[in-house]
């Protein structure tokens, strides 16, 4: 499978000269499977350019996997061109709720006054599914979700194909109320799906000294992210959901903190950036680097 990052900023889009290298679009990651299917992880503003690119390279089948419905993970949906293609079949997966169907919750955004087009008026054929907490097959991949610690119903996803695993936990605060240094791994939120992943994209919104003012906001400090990744025995860690107030320079300082504090991960931790391409196949995992 091949993954491509279209947006890795957290909370709100942050375009501008200070965020050019890592990008200002919010969460959206495309995964292309060997079967020709496409999985789109989250519908942040990075979904707009993805939709443009997809017009030239439509997948066999299109599945959108939403981790949760905060706007920075949903706002791009209304600007994703494939949803305006008549008859185009699209599957949208998201966290279940005992109160309201996924479609009804998404329609709160895709309806006036927040958006001019109603979800029910879209010409594509959209099918909604609860995020699968048991493994399901999508094309050549197996996909599984798990609820994780964040604000409101939120899941992470694990995608496996040909013995390789890609795990996506963009909004996650596993350290809330827990000491990740001492807690048994199975008691750590997200461990079940992250364990042994070849590649983990994980929330790393705050530098350690910033976290104290944001406890309970649903995001991780770089220290917690590193401890989580080590305890989950992941191979490659991609730092994701960059704080909208962090400039490119500050993000590189955060990465330097990670490498200095956890030298065993120094060669295996990196910052997500728009355009990043990750290949997971028979050969060792390869990851693209940001343009200088």
């Amino acid at each position, binding site marked *: 499978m091949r993954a491509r990052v279209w947006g890795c900023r957290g909370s709100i889009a942050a375009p501008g000269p200070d965020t050019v290298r890592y990008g200002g679009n919010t969460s959206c990651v495309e995964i292309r499977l060997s079967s020709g299917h496409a999985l789109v992880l989250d519908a942040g503003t990075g979904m707009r350019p993805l939709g443009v690119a997809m017009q030239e390279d439509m997948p066999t089948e299109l599945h959108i996997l939403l981790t949760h419905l905060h706007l920075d993970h949903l706002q791009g949906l209304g600007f994703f061109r494939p949803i305006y293609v008549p008859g185009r079949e699209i599957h949208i997966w998201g966290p*279940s*709720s*005992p109160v309201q169907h996924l479609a009804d919750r998404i329609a709160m955004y895709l309806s006036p006054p927040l958006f001019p087009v109603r979800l029910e008026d879209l010409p594509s054929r959209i099918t909604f599914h609860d995020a699968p907490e048991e493994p399901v097959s999508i094309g050549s991949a197996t996909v599984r979700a*798990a*609820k*994780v*610690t964040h604000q409101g119903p939120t899941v992470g996803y694990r995608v496996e194909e040909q013995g390789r695993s890609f795990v996506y936990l963009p909004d996650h605060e596993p350290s*809330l*109320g*827990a000491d990740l*240094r001492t807690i*048994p*791994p*199975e*008691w*750590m*939120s997200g*461990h*079940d799906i992250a*364990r042994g992943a070849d590649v983990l994209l994980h929330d790393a919104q705050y530098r350690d000294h910033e976290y104290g003012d944001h406890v309970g906001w649903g995001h991780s400090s770089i220290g917690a992210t590193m*401890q989580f990744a*080590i*305890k989950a*025995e992941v191979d490659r860690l991609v730092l994701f959901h960059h704080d909208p107030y962090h400039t490119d320079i500050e993000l590189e300082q955060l990465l330097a903190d990670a490498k200095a*504090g*956890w*030298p*065993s991960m120094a060669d295996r931790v990196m910052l997500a950036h728009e355009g990043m391409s990750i290949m997971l196949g028979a050969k060792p995992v390869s990851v693209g680097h940001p343009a200088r």
Partner: protein
Amino acid sequence: MSEPLGTPGAPRSLPLILARELASSLATPMFLLDPGGMLVFYNDAAAMLLGKSFAELGEIPSGEFGAALDLATPDGAPIRLRDSPSGIALIERRPAHTVLMATAYDGARRTYEATAYPLLGGAGEMHGVVAVFWEDAPAEHAG
């Protein structure tokens, strides 16, 4: 600065994980049972009852936990596990509350109000049980 990697046990669901985090933050004795009835965690306040920390005792079957505390009604009649609040919460999937006597590890027999409730997920699935003990009266040493 790598951490020792313990052997992970059975995966825990998020409701149980969050219940453990809550229990760890409270000074009220709190016990967590998994869907199979295994006592999978208790907090430091509960350790004052059992005489050993969870780190020392680890997971124990709920029957052994009930026996260790010698649960009884205020009249002294033994309480069967299935009739205890945690047993009712686990088997009947509903909250339960009662007044009971429990013997702590130091031999002190105390009266508690005990409440247990099931952790039911969005699809009605059982994630486990939370049992809370509130001490109700001053200690009364056995013998």
